[in-house]
C-alpha cells in the first residue's frame, strides 16, 4: 500500500464516488418519465457528485488559497443549483399551465 500515498488513495476513492453520482444524475436525467422527477434526480445527484469531486481534489491541494477556492466553488454550485432548480420547476409549471 505504501506505493500510493494515503491522500492519493482517498482522492481516487472520492472522485470515483463523485463520478458515480454524476453518472446517476445523468441516468436519472435520461430515464425518468417527467420533468419534475428528472429535476429532482439531477439536482440531488449532481451536487453530491460535485461535492465528492471537490473533496477529492482538495486532498491534492497544496495551499490554503486553493482549498478556499475549492470550497467557494462547491458552495456556489450548491446555491446556484438549488435556486435554478426552483426557478426551472416554476417556469415548467407556468409553461405547462399556459400550454396545458
Amino acid at each position: 500500500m505504501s506505493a500510493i500515498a494515503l491522500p492519493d488513495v482517498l482522492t481516487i476513492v472520492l472522485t470515483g464516488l463523485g463520478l458515480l453520482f454524476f453518472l446517476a444524475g445523468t441516468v436519472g436525467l435520461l430515464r425518468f418519465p417527467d420533468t419534475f422527477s428528472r429535476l429532482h434526480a439531477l439536482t440531488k445527484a449532481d451536487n453530491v457528485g460535485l461535492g465528492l469531486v471537490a473533496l477529492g481534489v482538495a486532498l491534492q491541494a497544496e495551499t490554503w488559497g486553493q482549498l478556499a477556492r475549492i470550497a467557494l466553488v462547491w458552495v456556489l454550485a450548491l446555491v446556484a443549483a438549488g435556486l435554478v432548480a426552483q426557478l426551472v420547476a416554476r417556469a415548467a409549471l407556468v409553461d405547462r399551465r399556459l400550454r396545458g
Partner: protein
Amino acid sequence: MTVLFDLVLCALMLLAALAAIGGRGLFRATVFFVAYGITVALAWVRLGAIDVALAEAAIGAGLTGLLLLGAVARLRRAGAPEFPVRAGLVPALAAAGVAGATGWVALRVPGAGGLWTEAGEALPLSGVENPVTAVLLNFRAWDTLLESIVLLAALLAVWALAREEEWEAPVGPPLHARPGGVLEGMARLLPPVGIVVGVFLVWAGASQPGGAFQGGTVLAAVGLIAALAGLVALPRPDSGSWRTALAAGPAVFLLVGASGLALGGLLLFPPDWAKAMILTVEVFLTLSIAATLALLVLGPPQPRRMP
C-alpha cells in the same frame, strides 16, 4: 490518458457545435451554444491558457448565452417564424474547402515558433509578471485601448436602434421579479460573491491569470443578475454618471498613453512606473468594461408601459 480526455472533449465540442447549428428549434440551438461555450472554455483549460479560459467562460458561456436567450424570447414575441435548415451543396463545399485548406496548411506548414522568447525577455521590463497581461496592457496596449473603444462603439450602435421618442426611457426591458422570491434572493446573494471574484480577477491579473476583461465581465454578469431581479434602477442613455463610467476607462488609458509622449514615446510605460500605470489603467478599464457590457446586454432604451 490525455489522448482519451482530448478525444472526448473534442467530440463534445463538435457535437455541440453541430447541434447548435444544424438542429431544429431556436431555443434548443441556444442551449447547445451555451453548452458549446462551456466545452470550449474547458478546451482552453486543457491547452493551459487559463486567461483565455476565463474570458471564454465569462463571455462565451455567460454573456453570449444571456444575449441569445433574450433574442430568442424577443423573436418569439415578435412572432417571427422559424424554418428548417436549407441544405445546400455549394455552401457545404465552400465551407469544407476553407476549413480543409486551413487545417491542411496549419498542419503542413512548420510553425515559426511564435514570440515566446521575445515576450519572455521583455517581461521583466513590462512591470507585470503575467505575460498575457504584459502583452495586453504594455506590449500591445494600442490594441487593448482600441478594443475598449470598440465596446463603446457597439453600445452606441445598440442605442441608435431606439426610436426618437424612446430616448428618454430607461435602458432595457421593464425587468421585475416577485418580491421575496427566489430570483430576488439570488440577486441579493450572488452579486457580493461576484464582486469579490471580479475584483480578485482584476487585481490578480498582474501576476496570475485574470485581468480587466475577465474581471469586468464577471462584474457585468452579477450586475445584470441584480438588474434582472429589478433591484437596480436602470439608467437612461443620457444619464451623466453612467456616461462618465463608460468613458472613464478609455479616457484614463488615452491620457496615460499620451503621457508616454513626455516620457519618450507614445504609450510608453517606463519599467519602474509601468506597474503603477498599468494598475491604474486596469481599475478604470474594469469599471468601464463592466458598465458597457452590462448596458450592451440590456439593450436600447424601451418605454415603460404605465402599470
